[in-house]
């Protein structure tokens, strides 16, 4: 019997330890940022740093000597706000109307198709968007622009397309949760479908839609690589639609690799300012979405009259037209992007065998992607190997062991939620200041994977927790009532029932490791060297390789081929995830149907 006690105790210790580790890593990240950024704020001066508009760092500046460089980021703050506003204007409006289309005007048969379009748009890695920007959008814009097309317009367009899926998905779920009874009541009064949709349904979902826009803003703020590739990046104000400018994230990722002492501190401080904006937005989101929930729970009878203006003033007919157009636009963009990249990238990929299987010659003309493929695989394995067990155990602790509202749990949970909002470049920054010194200052697959595993944690914890919550309590009771201990109940019953959720966490994580590039660039390596032989060697993931190839401009066909591989990987992940999750769901609902018979 003692053996069981020991097992129960060990279980609690291990699950609790994982949760504690998650909380500790959040604290570590913020401690490092403060610890590294504070001296820079002090040396440069908060006012001069935030409101200075000359950025001209010197890599020889140290904390002991007078500064010779200039460290003002105001141009980039303005640039970030401008690009985010532009993205919101484009992606927000398109996303909103697309959601309206999907919820109310989409023919039943096409619903699955459009859902896949949005899914795919969400899954395409940010470097691929950036590359599409460089190779398709900039040449197009340069026809009308005085420069090569880069600047605020290009950045807003690309960012807008990137936040569109987020806005669409959240707005759609807000619209879907409006009670059907509203619709029926309005129809019964003789209102047409479109009138009902725009006069009743959308106003009722207003808070949820606003929340989705705020979340879109959060995404736009944290986006790095795509915007680096199309913004031009000179540290000046965005003085027009076609004028080179720089955003905060770009500042970090462009200079992190060669920064001196104060310079590095200033980049960390840039990260702190970025986080400040992100948390401001998250706070807004929380306030909005809690309002949305409150409104949803309110009884219908106490609602104020809901016949108000829709979010944007337009007539129902115009609204319907716009929603159809938006959805068409989304599909067009996806087709254009896929078509263009496949068209340019497939031929070189198929005709040049050395692309995939060749040996890399330093300085040679031939580029091979084999080292990047292997490095990507290594990074996927290690970062998932860390994040999945840790995240699942944390979720188990939070959901199975703790009382819902105890202080410790609330703290851990909000720590994890905070982590979820941190932009990926900040993880990269953390990796550089915290992990690189551990490995003698040089980048390695190990350092990159550690960095990214931290980034994966919040998603894994949340997804797993959701699926644990979906496991019926009856199963737990049934097992405990038989005299089984908690550990056995969890391992034998609860986790197997939550498998589809854990599986989707795995797929999401693989997708992120493949797609992210900002956190890898300086932690894992940016030179396409030979195949990494161990985790201590450096290497480039495919996304980083694409960034390099696109930036050099010499190996443009190889860049297209890399983009094709990335897209194919994302596509196949997406498909296999749906197939397997669908299968697991069907398996569990089959039982339920039989039960209700």
């Amino acid at each position, binding site marked *: *019997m003692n*053996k*069981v006690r020991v097992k129960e105790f060990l279980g609690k210790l291990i699950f609790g330890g994982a949760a504690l580790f998650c909380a500790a890593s959040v604290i570590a990240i913020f401690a490092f940022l403060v610890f590294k950024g504070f001296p820079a704020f002090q040396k440069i001066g908060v006012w001069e740093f935030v409101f200075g508009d000359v950025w001209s760092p010197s890599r020889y500046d140290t904390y002991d000597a007078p500064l010779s460089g200039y460290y003002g980021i105001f141009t980039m703050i303005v640039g970030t706000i401008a690009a985010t506003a532009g993205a919101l204007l484009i992606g927000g409006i398109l996303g909103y109307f697309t959601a309206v289309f999907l919820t109310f005007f989409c023919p039943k048969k096409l619903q699955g198709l459009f859902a896949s379009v949005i899914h795919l748009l969400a899954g395409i890695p940010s470097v691929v968007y950036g590359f599409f920007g460089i190779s398709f959008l900039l040449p197009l814009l340069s026809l009308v622009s005085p420069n090569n097309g880069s600047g605020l317009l290009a950045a807003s367009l690309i960012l807008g397309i990137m936040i569109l899926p987020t806005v669409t998905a959240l707005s759609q779920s807000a619209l879907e949760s409006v009670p059907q009874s509203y619709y029926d009541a309005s129809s019964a009064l003789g209102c047409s479908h479109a009138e009902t949709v725009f006069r009743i349904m959308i106003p009722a979902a207003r808070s949820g839609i606003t929340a989705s826009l705020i979340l879109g803003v959060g995404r736009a703020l944290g986006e790095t690589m795509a915007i680096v590739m199309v913004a031009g990046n000179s540290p000046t104000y965005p003085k027009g639609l076609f004028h080179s400018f720089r955003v905060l994230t770009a500042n970090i990722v462009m200079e992190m690799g060669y920064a001196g002492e104060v310079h590095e501190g200033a980049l960390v401080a840039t990260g702190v300012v970025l986080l400040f904006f992100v948390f401001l937005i998250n706070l807004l989101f929380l306030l909005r979405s809690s309002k949305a929930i409150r409104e949803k729970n309110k009884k219908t009878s106490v609602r104020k009259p809901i016949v108000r203006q829709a979010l944007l003033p337009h007539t129902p007919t115009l609204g319907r037209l716009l929603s159809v157009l938006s959805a068409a636009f989304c599909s067009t963009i996806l087709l254009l992007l896929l078509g263009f990249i496949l068209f340019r990238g497939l031929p070189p990929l198929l005709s040049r065998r050395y692309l995939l299987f060749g040996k890399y010659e330093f300085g040679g003309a031939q580029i091979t992607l084999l080292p990047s493929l292997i490095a990507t695989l290594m990074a996927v394995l290690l970062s998932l190997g860390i994040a999945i067990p840790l995240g699942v155990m944390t979720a188990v602790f939070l959901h199975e062991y703790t*009382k*819902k509202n105890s202080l410790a749990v609330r703290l851990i949970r909000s720590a994890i939620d905070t982590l979820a909002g941190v932009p990926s470049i900040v993880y990269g920054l953390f990796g550089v200041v915290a992990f690189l010194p551990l490995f003698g200052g040089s980048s390695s697959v190990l350092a990159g994977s550690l960095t990214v595993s931290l980034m994966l944690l919040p998603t894994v914890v949340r997804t797993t927790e959701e699926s644990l919550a979906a496991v*019926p309590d*009856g*199963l737990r*009771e*049934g*097992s*405990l*009532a*038989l*005299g*089984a*201990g908690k550990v*056995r109940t969890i391992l*034998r*019953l609860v986790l*197997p*029932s939550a498998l589809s959720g854990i599986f989707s966490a795995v797929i999401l994580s693989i997708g992120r490791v493949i797609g992210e590039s900002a956190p890898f660039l300086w932690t894992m390596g940016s030179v396409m060297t030979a195949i990494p032989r161990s985790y201590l060697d450096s290497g480039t993931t495919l996304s980083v390789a694409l960034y390099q190839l696109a930036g050099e401009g010499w190996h443009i066909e190889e860049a297209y081929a890399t983009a094709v591989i990335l897209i194919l990987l994302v596509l196949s992940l997406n498909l296999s995830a749906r197939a397997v999750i669908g299968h697991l769901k069907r398996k*569990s609902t*089959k*039982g*339920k149907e*039989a*039960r*209700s*018979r």
Partner: protein
Amino acid sequence: MKAREIPHFGQSIRVRHADLWYGAFHALKDICIDLPSRTLTAFIGPSGCGKSTLLKCFNRMNDMVEKCRVSGEFLIDGVSIYGKIDVNALRKSVGMVFQKPNPFPMSIYDNIAYGPRTFGVRKRAELDAIVEDSLRRAAIWDEVADRLNRSALGLSGGQQQRICIARALAVKPSILLMDEPTAALDPISTEKIEELCLELRKTTTIVTVTHNLGQAARISDKTAFFLSGELVECGDTKQLFSAPRDERTRRYITGKFG
């Protein structure tokens, strides 16, 4: 591997001055009741009167409920179950069947073998014997003998409930608690489970909660009537239904309460 030695609890339940609170809510008030060995007792009373709550005290399933506080004496064959005992061993001796059938999402065989495996039975032959015996005692062997490896979720509600009973029997409990075991079932399944209860009573102490007064009258030896957390009356079923001592009991069984 030999099955571990598990302390065994007896068959008779004795409750003295038991109170239970959910937070500030006083759910059981000064309950005193005796449930002798190998009898079938039915708990009746309107919804929310505390029947399930008292039932869950007998295998300490209330331990999981936040802010639940218990006082008073709960004895099984003289052993206090709220003292220093092994809760898992208690639950092995005191089985439970729930209102909503809750088969595990695994094969029928694994459902039944789950309990024995928990307590260290590993040998296939031994497990086979336990599975067959339990399914027979739960009167469902004939229906599932040829598909033991299929998922238990594919069975009908009535079959699932009997699987759950078999699962509870597989760890050889001396007491079986049933919380409205037939509430979610059709009349034919209900009848089967009633017969099963009468059979099981010969070896096991059974406590069942039911909303169906006819069922209580048909199968139970003793009936206990609860109202707002109090035990109003407990006696021989025949006597309680024909000549209730308490006016409130009379009104309940003649249909004056909801």
